[in-house]
């Protein structure tokens, strides 16, 4: 589904924050009307007071509440930009360009006669866009199955929110939560034959999921995290080699059907 909303540059206020050792869940509010945003789309955040980051930073929309002009970001602290952002004090002003990119493709609303089985697979911070997606699926009458993976229990974020929308399975590499191992090794994958898979996480994990989906002959969309300079199609830095040649992940993605990819 393509964005039909105009892109905007908007100021937000950091309204609420939950911070962990390696990540933070941040709720932002704007005084403007929040444009319509679809799950899988992202924002380009300006990191203020940050001598080490010149460019904006792309982050997926984790959740929205249009009525109250609120938007959530789930941020993993991996470098100067994300650390500075996650460290912001409440009421800080944050400037974003949004909404950017193409969203996940939603199935037709569910009918009792034909209930598709949907699986959402998230690795680490890759779960960020999946919560928003779950809500939309839920609104369309679906109750997806979640498979969330991380290095340890601390990486499994927002599990209670996911549970609101469907059944959650977990893997951790150290076995501190759920099954021990990689997400693609979870036993549920042997049992289930989903009709649709949506996946976001580190590239090797998404590649493993793509192979699995191909093996199961299952429809599958993944969300890429290529390095971006602009985020809106102007710089051609974020390309992925696809069946159509080099395409910009910021405008033709970040969501791709695995059929488009050369993995």
């Amino acid at each position, binding site marked *: 589904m393509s964005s039909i909303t*105009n*892109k*905007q*540059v908007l100021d937000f206020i950091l309204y609420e924050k939950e911070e962990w050792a390696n990540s933070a869940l941040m709720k932002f509010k704007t005084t403007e009307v929040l444009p319509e945003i679809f799950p899988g789309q992202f924002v380009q955040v*300006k990191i203020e007071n940050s001598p*080490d*980051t*010149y*460019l*904006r930073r792309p982050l997926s929309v984790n959740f929205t509440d249009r009525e109250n002009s609120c938007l959530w970001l789930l941020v993993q602290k991996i470098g100067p930009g994300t650390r500075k952002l996650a460290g912001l004090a409440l009421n800080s002003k944050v400037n974003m*360009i949004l909404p950017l990119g193409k969203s996940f493709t939603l199935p037709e609303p569910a009918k009792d006669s034909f209930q598709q089985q949907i699986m959402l697979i998230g690795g680490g911070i890759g779960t960020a866009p999946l919560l928003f997606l779950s809500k939309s699926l839920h609104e369309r009458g679906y109750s997806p199955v979640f498979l969330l993976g991380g290095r340890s229990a601390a990486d499994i974020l927002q599990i209670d929110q996911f549970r609101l929308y469907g059944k959650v399975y977990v893997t951790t590499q150290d076995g501190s939560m759920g099954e021990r191992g990689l997400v693609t090794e979870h036993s549920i994958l042997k049992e289930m034959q989903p009709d649709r898979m949506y996946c976001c996480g580190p590239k090797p994990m998404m590649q493993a999921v793509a192979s699995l989906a191909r093996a199961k002959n299952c429809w599958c969309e993944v969300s890429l995290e*290529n*390095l*971006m*300079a*602009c*985020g*809106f*199609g*102007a*710089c*051609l*830095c*974020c*390309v*992925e*080699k696809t069946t159509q*040649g*080099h395409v910009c992940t910021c405008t033709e993605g970040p969501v791709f059907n695995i059929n488009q990819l050369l993995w």
Partner: protein
Amino acid sequence: MVDLSVQLKALRLKNPVMTASGTFGYGEEYLDFMDVSRIGGIIVKGTTIRPREGNDYPRMAETASGMLNAVGLQNKGVHYFVKHIYPRICDFNTNVLVNVSGSTVDDYVQAAEIIQELDKIPGIELNVSCPNVKEGGMAFGVSPRALSLVVKEVRAVYKKHLMLKLSPNVTDITELAKIAEDQGADSLSLINTLLGMAIDAENRRPKLSTVTGGLSGPCIKPVALRMVWQTYKAVKIPVIGIGGISNTADAIEFMLAGASAIQVGTANFIDPGVSVSIAEGITDYCRRHGFKSAKELTGSLIID
């Protein structure tokens, strides 16, 4: 009322602010953010005679106050431009110039001839300074002989505004500037990106697939300003300043150093409406400093 218009030989800009090639797409990417009719011109993406896939990913690395890119002139070729893109952008109420690149002199000449037929394109910017392609590109920009040839041949066939974009990766930019002037260029734009490199110390690999790439952003402004000043003193044709321009003060600095107009590049990525703000800011500056027109700014640096 401040008169913001500037004249690059026969080409009139409503104000001195243009956007730099490769940083502004075809203008369409910015329509949500700004009104393109409020700037003096747009230089669209680097265009080549044949389609180019560009370089492999990764093509970008952030650096201190700037970035490296290694896009490598990805574009669908001049014929695609004429057929599919031109019709969409020809009604922009501003000057749309096409940035032309090639691997051989013939590539440049052919592309120029094709673009000449487009009514609403008043000029081209010859890019002889792209550091991101193996053949051609920068080679033309750093070799006096090659530069002389390509400008001469294109000039022979191209009758509208011929802007030549200079490479900063040279010992003496005035030498190349004078050659371009002698061979009939109407104006000179500078600078293109500086050739740079970035390494990820932790994984011990270059950050760009091509190892080296083009450096842009505020970090290059001092070098660009110096080259604009040197070139302004060396030639008679108008000079267009490029390099790290991010706000009105930057634009003014380039004009004081000798630029007749300026191009905003990488700053568009961070603040997509910045070119319009700069145009507005120039009016304000002229007013505060008693300039009746933006033209008067050009070269008005005071050296005691």
